[in-house]
């Protein structure tokens, strides 16, 4: 079992002919992801990486039966691409584009919310169900099928966590990188319920960082829902000075909001084990996994 993406997922790639789009599509294909189409306006009728290219998402859905969009287009066009995917009736959109104007995303998020599509991202590394499929940037070699769900704001740290869990033999059900932007399609509270409902997920690793209050909301959700799988959390940015963007557009302490300590306290208060290092994350998961 897994969440959001598996062997049956049929992916169309918005921006398949771009340099990045082409590289990562190949990586995804190599991993086993079923890529069924590309969408590049004006290039309909062509072929790329062995799949047909369409002018519009609607056409790709009709002709190739895509159900998921992988959106990897320049920032100025990304919000529109996300809305196109949502309007075409897709089930899932994964947008990795970094640098999208935040008010573009405000509009896109409102638009998406009125459709049936779940959006992951933007500015996210994507997601991976080891042994089945991945969408996005997560390196092909890091995952291993297993019992831990991972949900994270940062990319590289996610890879580290996955690698650690894999090396320790725990493995992952699905790892979801929700992204580092201030306005995201999915936040922790959107993903945690999916792990709650997935019987194969026996524990969850939550990788947060400074900025915003998604981690605090996650803690509230854990408390309110009675979520009873072990949660191991890791928060980066304890040394970050207030008012500075730490690489991610969303990683910024504003006034009294967004500090690492606030997030650590909130998560600890609902019973999550908060790790000081990635090594600790893996160890704490090992101690908490049922039957370990």
């Amino acid at each position, binding site marked *: 079992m897994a969440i959001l993406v598996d062997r049956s997922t049929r992916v169309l790639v918005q921006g398949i002919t771009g340099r990045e789009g082409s590289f990562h599509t190949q990586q995804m294909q190599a991993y086993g992801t079923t890529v069924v189409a590309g969408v590049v306006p004006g290039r309909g009728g062509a072929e790329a990486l062995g799949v047909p290219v369409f002018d519009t998402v609607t056409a790709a859905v009709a002709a190739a039966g895509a159900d998921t969009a992988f959106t990897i287009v320049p920032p100025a066009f990304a919000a529109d691409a996300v809305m196109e995917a949502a309007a075409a009736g897709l089930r899932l959109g994964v947008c990795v584009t970094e640098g999208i104007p935040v008010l*573009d995303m405000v509009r896109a998020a*409102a638009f998406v919310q009125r459709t049936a599509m779940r959006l992951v991202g933007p500015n996210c590394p994507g997601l991976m169900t080891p042994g089945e499929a991945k969408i996005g940037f997560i390196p092909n070699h890091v995952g291993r099928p297993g019992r831990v769900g991972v949900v994270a704001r940062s*990319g590289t740290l996610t*890879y580290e966590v996955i690698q650690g869990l894999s090396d320790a033999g725990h493995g992952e059900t699905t790892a979801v990188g929700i992204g580092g932007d201030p*306005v995201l399609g999915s936040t922790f509270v959107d993903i945690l319920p999916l792990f709650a409902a997935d019987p194969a997920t026996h524990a969850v690793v939550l990788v947060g960082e400074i900025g915003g*209050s998604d981690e605090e909301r996650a803690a509230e959700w854990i408390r309110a829902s009675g979520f009873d799988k072990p949660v191991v959390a890791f928060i980066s940015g304890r040394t970050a000075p207030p008012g*500075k963007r730490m690489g991610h557009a969303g990683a910024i302490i504003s006034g009294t909001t967004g500090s690492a300590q606030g997030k650590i306290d909130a998560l600890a208060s609902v019973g999550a084990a908060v790790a000081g*290092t990635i*090594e600790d994350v893996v160890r704490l998961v090992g101690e908490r996994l049922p039957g370990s």
Partner: protein
Amino acid sequence: MKLLEHQAKRQFARVGIAVPAGRLARTPEEAADAARELGRVAVKAQVPIGGRGKAGGIAVVDSPEAARREAARILAMEIRGYPVRSVWCEAGLEIVHELYLGVTLDRERRRLALILSAAGGMEIEEVAATSPERIAKVWPDPFAGPQPFEVRELAFAALAHAPPLAEARGRLAAALVPLAQTLHRLAVDLDAVTCEINPLVLTPEGTLVAADGKLEVDENAEYRHRELAAELALDLEGEDGRTGEDPFEAEAKRRGLTYVHLPGGSIGCIGNGAGLVMNTLDLVQQVGGRPNNFLDIGGGAGAEKVRAALEMVLSDPDVRGVFINIFGGITRGDEVARGVVQARDELGIRVPLVVRMTGTNEEEGRRILAAAGIVPGTSAPEAARKIVELVGGGA
């Protein structure tokens, strides 16, 4: 990108929001001219931060002579690192009441919030902390913008906490509708994550005037607002070229690097991925070191980028050692290793380098590093301990 007060006011005026008459002065003489023209004026330091008043950056003057004198004083100031390059000389207002009206990004709601408070003239965060009931908010649909009824709801909610305005609340609510709609549209048009009028002054004539303004443009959208950025740069840079920004950060921006400076730290920190670099800083501090910076070389960076990063980090002479933390996904360990060795040799780097490297081609990378006499590692906490040891305890 935070605009200066006078830029914000020019934007307000452009869309029809009333602002007091004012003149920008870059010299004491210009300030005196402004006072001659406008009479009693406030002379206000133009710096892109709050708290000017407390720092002595605002003076109210009655004569051209006083304007000249105060402008000379203020133009010689540096407020929290920002040299004052210009002053805004503005005619005074008769004040019946001070309100706050603002638009700001609410991450949790994924929308712009429209905020009104009858407690204007204070920092809105302070009001929020001390008397949250005096702040009213709505979150308009991002496509529709605020509807009249939403602004009225906002207005009646905020004015309920201002008994002296009870009588006039219907008229005020009606006047706030176009004002709030205009301010929201301005924020959207300028990609502003903050666009506020504080105080919004109610005058004896019953008009609403923007007595001060704050406007911050989303950095991701700066490409749509090049003229504003150019205008701001012109206003911030004096003849000495200093903008008040941290000079290392300014340099990093010019070089296109994602860099944050932590002045006084002794350990340079470089990594790939924002979370990873933040964690690198955390690890250094955890074992007693003082990180000097955050530098994210991003995904798939090659030798050239690593070299540029090292050069940037070492431009601060406080840096006495560098910790490079790489998780090889798309980024290849061997390539990074080659970049590090090459940069060290070409730049003649003498401070200790510790490179933690894992993931794609990690063995090859570590081999290259070891052969060149650079300390490799696979565990980040261990590598952090190592650099702190090498730089010296309490570093």
